[in-house]
């Protein structure tokens, strides 16, 4: 028996106001009469209570949650940094222990939407169980780009600002170099929601079918209910390289996929 007051929403969506996927989920929820509330991590932390004891764990509110990467909403002030860490830890604890569906649920060991996206690929590598005909693209971490970086996408690992070849980065800062995924190269992107998949880019590639199966398997290995997996495809080869695993996909702007993904997400969230 639930002890949640009736005035609580049916679903929490932790996201920024401009997040198009979150907006699509809110729209789908409204269409089904599901009361969904968009809020920041800070706002959610204010209503969240976690009790741990000899008699077990209790997390309130007992409602499913969709978590998207966003500014946490902590008001500016002299203690904002500390409050932000406290809010992050409180929400991570609550969402890890919540008995309802959380997409993507923060994990003790593994990928989390609350972590930098870079972590995803490394836990995947650590899991060691990649699908057949799929390899992981190499990556480099440097204090700065020494000379040119042709063929690489150079990402500032502090701001996530990225540019092809490193030519447009605004300052010298620690860099992450990944194989480029751009119009210059063949690639296939697959959106994963639970066990459902959609090819969001490169649908004409002969390996798109393999990519779709592999993306579903990678989502399962990485314990991600929502992800976009991008593969680099090479002419004349029948294997794919995983170039990106994004636990917070935003780039699949195609409207048909957006609405289908939002409906699928809502199915997942409200199943618990």
């Amino acid at each position: 028996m639930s002890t949640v007051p009736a005035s609580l929403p049916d679903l929490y969506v932790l996201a920024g106001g401009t997040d198009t996927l979150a907006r699509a989920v809110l729209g789908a929820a409204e269409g089904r009469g599901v009361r969904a509330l968009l809020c920041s991590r800070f706002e959610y932390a204010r209503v969240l209570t976690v009790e741990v004891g000899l008699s077990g764990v209790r997390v309130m509110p007992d409602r499913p949650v969709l978590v998207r990467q966003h500014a946490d909403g902590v008001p500016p002030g002299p203690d904002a940094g500390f409050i932000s860490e406290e809010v992050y830890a409180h929400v991570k604890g609550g969402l890890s222990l919540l008995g309802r569906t959380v997409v993507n649920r923060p994990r003790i060991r593994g990928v989390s939407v609350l972590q930098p996206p870079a972590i995803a690929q490394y836990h995947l590598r650590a899991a060691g169980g990649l699908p057949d005909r799929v390899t992981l693209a190499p990556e480099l971490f440097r204090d700065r780009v020494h000379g040119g970086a042709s063929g690489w996408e150079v990402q500032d690992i502090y701001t996530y600002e990225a540019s092809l070849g490193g030519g447009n980065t605004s300052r010298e800062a620690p860099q992450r170099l990944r194989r480029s995924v751009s119009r210059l190269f063949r690639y296939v992107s697959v959106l994963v929601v639970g066990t459902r998949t959609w090819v969001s880019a490169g649908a004409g590639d002969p390996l798109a079918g393999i990519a779709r199966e592999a993306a579903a398997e990678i989502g399962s290995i990485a314990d991600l209910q929502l992800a976009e997996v991008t593969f680099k495809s090479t002419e004349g080869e029948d294997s794919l390289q995983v170039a990106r695993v994004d636990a917070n996909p935003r780039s699949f702007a195609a409207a048909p996929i957006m609405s289908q993904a939002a409906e699928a997400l809502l199915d997942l969230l409200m199943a618990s």
Partner: protein
Amino acid sequence: MTRNVAVIGDATDPTTVHFLAECAAAGYKPRVVSLGDIVATGGWHLAVPDDGCSRVWTADAEVPLSDVGAFYCRLAGSRAQWPAEMEIRQSGLLLSLRLWLTASRALVINRPDIDQHNGAKSLHESELARLGFSVPDSISSSDISQLADFLRGGRAVIKACCGMRANTRELLIDRLREYSADRGPLHLQRLIPGYDIRAHVVGAEVFAVRIDGGPAVDYRTDRHARYSAVTLPRELQAVLVEATRAQGMAFSGWDLKVDADERVWCLESNPMPGYSFYDGHVGGDISKALMRQLWEQP
């Protein structure tokens, strides 16, 4: 063939400094990855998967990493006050090393991909309970009425939700009047009167110190606290060793409380224990056990 060992840490970290001194005294010569020096004067090239050329450097020396067989790492920010640009370099170096070490095939004490729950107290306490420990009741909330209810149920201490190191203190219900939810959530845990045990697990070895204090809630603030090396009951040692292994760690520090009925309560397990102070109470045995793990563990 001797295994190459590297110690990753910062010159402002007492535990790193202590371990390096113990290594020197024992005749071991690890490679030293000095985080602050790399940030201030050097750089890094870390490839995942390793390309055989992964390395870090300072103005004075380069430290190759690809041929290292075992790492002891304390990946924490320097205690030095950096300008903003250096803070960015430091966080970039720490993230890069975490990712590189996660993918490394070397022995890493402790690997960055171990169970990560110490930084979220409610999750941490739930995991400790799942591992079989008695854990004091706790609440994390911004709801003043629920916090007050918890305090009415018995004495409680306040801790940071994020695991940031701070002295533990008792929270009295009257002080709740000063609390505002704008300041973030509170984590309260039931206070357990009794004596403290700090136990360090290295592989299958356990080194424990008993701490008898005065009225202070946190013995670290008690000038009259008395420390003595103790041997824990064999069953408790086995539980600590197994719980350390189950969390993916080779080295851990455990904060235990023993109440008047001799019931053992677990307050915390530390995945990157600052152990130098306690090492002095066990004759340096923690450092020696770490050296055995790093240089001799197959």
